[in-house]
């Protein structure tokens, strides 16, 4: 390496130093530390002498019905939420981008606006919508539903209720999808039209393949987010898991184990389980993406 190149390298490393230090101090070292915790017995609730407990925390995890039940709550929510949060922004972006829609600039801004509303506030705003004399049930009654669901008090309906509350987060997805749609070369549509492709076949053979990287990106972010979902139920039900344990999400259980019951070691074990599941699912999605995500050749 020449003297000049070495100087450039030194300067570059100096500029990224804040991140390097931050990554080491706030991410890497603590993560390794929590991994070590999983083999210890740190718990502020019980003042036992610190010792190595081997796989005891993992054994407890396998026998912990609450942990698996809460993982199931997260999975059930994900099954309903993921299709919505991936498809809805795409469909709304298609509609906003349609040549038949006027005022698309205004629509874009209005759809994106709730993105800046703090989610504690949005949880409370939506709670007000979902209670029995809120507008949603009033509207349902108006349309002839005699007994609309008790959204936030019924274990069956609370999950769809939470999905509705989450709708206000789709704004950024719409913007990303819109940017993707505008980046599709118009020649592709011209060529498809020459071949006699109608609206549906253009969508199927041009728009969706060209949008697949964007859809994949929103999917990955949505998966990482849904695995950690628990703050809205924490605000609405004060962490009780009401109604009937239907909102005891995995991350809520993890949060309470660590911060409420101060079982540091077992909490760390739960955190590592969450991390490993997220990692496995993400890697799996990356592997599967080769079959359906099309990157244009220049990338």
């Amino acid at each position, binding site marked *: 390496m020449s003297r000049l190149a070495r100087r450039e390298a030194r300067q570059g490393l100096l500029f990224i130093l804040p991140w390097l230090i931050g990554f080491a101090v706030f991410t890497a070292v603590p993560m390794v530390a929590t991994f070590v915790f999983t083999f210890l017995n740190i718990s502020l609730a019980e003042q036992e002498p610190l010792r190595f407990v081997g796989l005891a925390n993992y054994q407890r995890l396998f026998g912990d019905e609450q942990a698996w039940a809460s993982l199931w709550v997260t999975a059930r929510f994900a099954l309903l939420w993921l299709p919505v949060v991936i498809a809805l922004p795409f469909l709304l972006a298609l509609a906003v981008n349609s040549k038949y829609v006027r005022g698309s600039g205004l629509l874009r801004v209005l759809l994106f606006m709730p993105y800046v509303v703090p989610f504690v506030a949005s949880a*409370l705003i939506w709670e007000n919508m979902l209670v029995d004399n809120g507008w949603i049930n009033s509207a349902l009654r108006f349309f002839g539903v005699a007994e609309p669901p008790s959204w936030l008090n019924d274990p069956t309906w609370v999950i769809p209720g939470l999905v509705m509350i989450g709708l206000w987060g789709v704004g950024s997805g719409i913007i990303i999808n819109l940017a993707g749609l505008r980046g599709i070369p118009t020649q592709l549509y011209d060529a498809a039209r020459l071949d006699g492709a109608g609206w549906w076949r253009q969508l199927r053979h041009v728009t969706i393949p060209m949008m697949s990287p964007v859809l994949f990106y929103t999917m990955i972010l949505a998966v990482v987010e849904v695995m950690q979902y628990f703050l809205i139920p924490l605000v609405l039900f004060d962490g009780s898991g009401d109604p009937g344990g239907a909102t005891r999400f995995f991350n809520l259980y993890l949060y309470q184990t660590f911060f409420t019951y101060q079982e540091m070691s077992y909490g760390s074990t739960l955190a590592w389980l969450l991390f490993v599941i997220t990692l496995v699912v993400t890697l799996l999605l990356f592997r599967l993406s080769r079959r359906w995500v099309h990157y244009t050749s220049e990338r």
Partner: protein
Amino acid sequence: MAPNLVRRTRVALMTIVMFGIVAAFLSPLVQMTLSSLKSEQQVTQAHSPLLPSDPRTFTYQGERYDVYRVPVDGAVRDLALVDKGRTESGFVDPARPEQGLITWQGSWRTLEPSWTLAPRWSNYADVWSLIDFPRLLFNTVVLAVVGTLGTVLSCTLVAYGFARFRFPGRGPLFTLLIATIFLPVTVTLIPTYTVFAQIGWVGTWLPLLVPAFFANAYNVFLLRQYFLTIPREMDEAASIDGAGPLRTLLSVIVPQAWPAITAVVLFTFVYTWNDYLTPLVYLSGQPDLQPLQVGLAAFNGLYTKNPGYIQAGTMMTIAIPVLLFVCFQRTFVRGIMSTGVDK
């Protein structure tokens, strides 16, 4: 002519449908505004009007009486109930009290009360002092301003390092940086909490402020993408004039990258303003240090029975982010676009 008409109908229909969807999407904001002005009494009462109102009363011969909607001879009249009876009651017409008692057959309990428009602006004043709004606002502003400052400073430096310098391991390090986006927040929150607890920072603002000065993946990514679009010739011209890398950054890159830097400022400010989990974890038990979102959630726990208060408090906490968005919506939208497309 006909195809044109078909097209126009289609445009009209699609546009109406889309604005209808958006209206429904934003309707919770309208309900929040209306609820924030309602009395506790109105919210708990079934069949109360849509707009903030009070039950009407009428003072007759020195006494206050409730006004009901009474069907008389096929028309509904607003009458004050003066003499309650099981099968017949005496009413007075507030518009013409001199006419004296009107006797009405039927049980008055089946009647609907009459309402009059009465927005409770006092809800806002009440909440202002109940949650100690000035203190919460002060805490939030300090946290957001310092956090934003730290993020912009550190992310600009790091993004510049990744965008303009060649050094061994640059590719893998950048991948590592991006990978941290996919790391679940709780997974890093737990270990960092343990560290901060060890050094005695829990219960102070330090765990919320200090990490901001060590850059984060989203904003480094956004800034680096933008820096890469600035022609290198401009840096080189500056360095020929004898400017060092820091001078080049400040005099060439930063002025050019202003749109991206504003986006980072806005995103970080709104993000810090809206953050709940980190302050909740580090400042629980320290109400004097907590920001708005934590205060609002606690307030919700105390006043569940009075939605008017809750919604007024909510309005007070979202006002500033929403205002910022209204002023800078273009910058917000462009910022989101640049993180998404180049992925």
